[in-house]
């Protein structure tokens, strides 16, 4: 009895020693990753997370929103392993150690209610609306009704790119309602025939109508071919070099199978 117990514990020790000695690559990944940030990146990150989890069942990936600013702040503070951002990193964020890894490209879509008869606006008209110079739909070929602008608040990566692409050096007018996520902008626009807003292309569904810009519709095909010009990069952000698990997840997102998942919501990197 005593003998056999000792024997089995020796076997166990040897097994543990062998397992530890095995090269790291051969071992299955395990552990957990936390992501937070851009609500634009969030849907695709969630899909990547569940696919990554089914490949590596002992890895848990939790994805939360908050907005690009929150994601970058969280990752720099060590609260999450990966931040998600839909805007480029600022120089001050880079100096604090933030590193961005592009994982997808996204077309910014300008949306209105399906009830709105306007379906095409020029870049200048969109700028006029969001800087407060154009205030009635009839000025751009619609019904005689005031325009209700719905946008994002400062700190949002989507606002950042929207300003870069459409507003130039001007600010978004203080009469534009500001919401804290893509989803809230979409529901505000869906519920109001006079509203106009902008969201990442993954949020353009049947509850709203994606406007053509300068006659070009914001379809995946047009965005991929470069005909629709309002396309930005989406990033995973780490502080310094990523941990091996975070690195594996980022590499997966950028791999062929990861990019095929990306393509369900956004544009592949290449």
């Amino acid at each position, binding site marked *: 009895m005593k003998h056999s117990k000792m024997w089995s514990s020796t076997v166990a020790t040897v097994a543990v020693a062998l397992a530890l000695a095995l090269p790291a690559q051969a071992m299955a990944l395990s552990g957990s990753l936390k992501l937070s940030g851009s609500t634009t990146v969030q849907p695709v990150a969630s899909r990547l997370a569940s696919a990554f989890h089914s490949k590596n069942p002992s890895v848990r990936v939790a994805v939360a929103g908050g907005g690009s600013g929150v994601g970058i702040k969280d990752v720099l503070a060590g609260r999450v392993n990966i931040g998600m951002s839909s805007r480029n990193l600022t120089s001050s964020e880079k100096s604090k150690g933030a590193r961005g890894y592009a994982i997808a490209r996204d077309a910014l879509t300008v949306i209105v209610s399906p009830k709105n008869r306007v379906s095409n606006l020029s870049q200048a008209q969109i700028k006029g609306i969001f800087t407060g110079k154009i205030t009635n739909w009839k000025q751009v070929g619609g019904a005689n*009704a005031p325009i*209700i602008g719905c946008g994002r608040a400062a*700190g949002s990566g989507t606002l950042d790119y929207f300003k870069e692409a459409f507003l130039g050096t001007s600010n978004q007018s*203080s009469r534009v309602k500001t919401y804290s996520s893509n989803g809230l902008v979409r529901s505000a626009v869906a519920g109001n025939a006079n509203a106009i807003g902008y969201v990442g292309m993954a949020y353009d569904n049947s509850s709203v109508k994606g406007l053509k810009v300068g006659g070009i519709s914001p379809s995946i095909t047009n965005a991929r071919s470069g005909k629709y010009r309002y396309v930005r990069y989406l990033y995973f952000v780490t502080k310094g070099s990523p941990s091996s698990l975070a690195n594996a997840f980022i590499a997966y997102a950028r791999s062929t199978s990861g990019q095929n998942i990306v393509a369900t919501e956004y544009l592949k990197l290449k």
Partner: protein
Amino acid sequence: MGGTTGATALSHAEQVGMDGLVGDGPLRRKLETSIAKWLLLLASVIAASTVLLLIVFVVGQAIPLIQHSGFSWLWGMDWDVALQEAFSEEIWVFGVLPLIVGTLLTTTGAVIMAGVIGMGASVFLAELGPKRIRRPVETLVRLLAGVPSVVFGLIGLTVVVPWVQRTFISDELLLKYSDIPLDGSGLGVAIIVLTFMILPFFVTVATDSLRAVPQRYREGGLAIGLSPWRTVTRIVIPAATPGVTAGLVLAAARAIGEAIAISMVGGALAFIPKISDGPVMLLSPLRTMAAAIVENGETMNVAPIQSVLFALAAVLLLSSLSLSLLARVVFARLQRRMGVLSDREI
């Protein structure tokens, strides 16, 4: 629970009696008491110092803003654009006046509404309601206090806002007030949501104040031939004024800090509703100080914005604390002036 304590006490007594060591008793009791005293002192120091630490921390975070731009942010008019500018380069110019006005309007509106409805409910519960239904109604009102504010916000956003939009916002109204983005959300819905949130707090305090009015006041009223209704309105309610007023002030302190629900139904715009617009004022969007802290939290990684959000928190904290203090002062003053004495004091 009570049984256990009783058993322990008994066994302790038995022990003392059995050993007959009376000399140990007082010493041990003294020691126990003094340890308990110190622990209780520690507990109250922790509780009391939390408030002071909070004030020091929050005000401390607001100081960079005051160093850069004094108090100009208090009466500046522009919030959203200033945030955009501060986010792209280090600018310390902000305007929180629309947020202050938004907070004052929603709080005042809700306190008035809750005061009127709550007074009715309290008179029913404390004085005139049939005894059989008082209990269940009071339980329900107290349950209302436990409903998380986000639930109020959700119902406001999905039910009340679309209803207001369908019922009150016509095409003509939209064109007439084209400079106000009208979509159903705004001051009116914010006041409704906030009213139901503070109502249970007020009803609880007001009901207790009415009940605290000595029975002989009512007997006196009835004795000189007043009807029960008149007795309540002419004698009981005036006698309960100190408590009722204090309840209103406490409800206001609760209302100014509400963030989530107001941010959901307030209309997502730092806009100042204008009295000159008449009833349309109630449809105008607004943003309160507390809602701004939630909605603009995303920009906290920028130093000037972090500082201005803490400045808002400081304004909120100080107003809330002064309202609580005011409630005490008002209560004491009114009670002294009116010479109301409880049965015990006679």
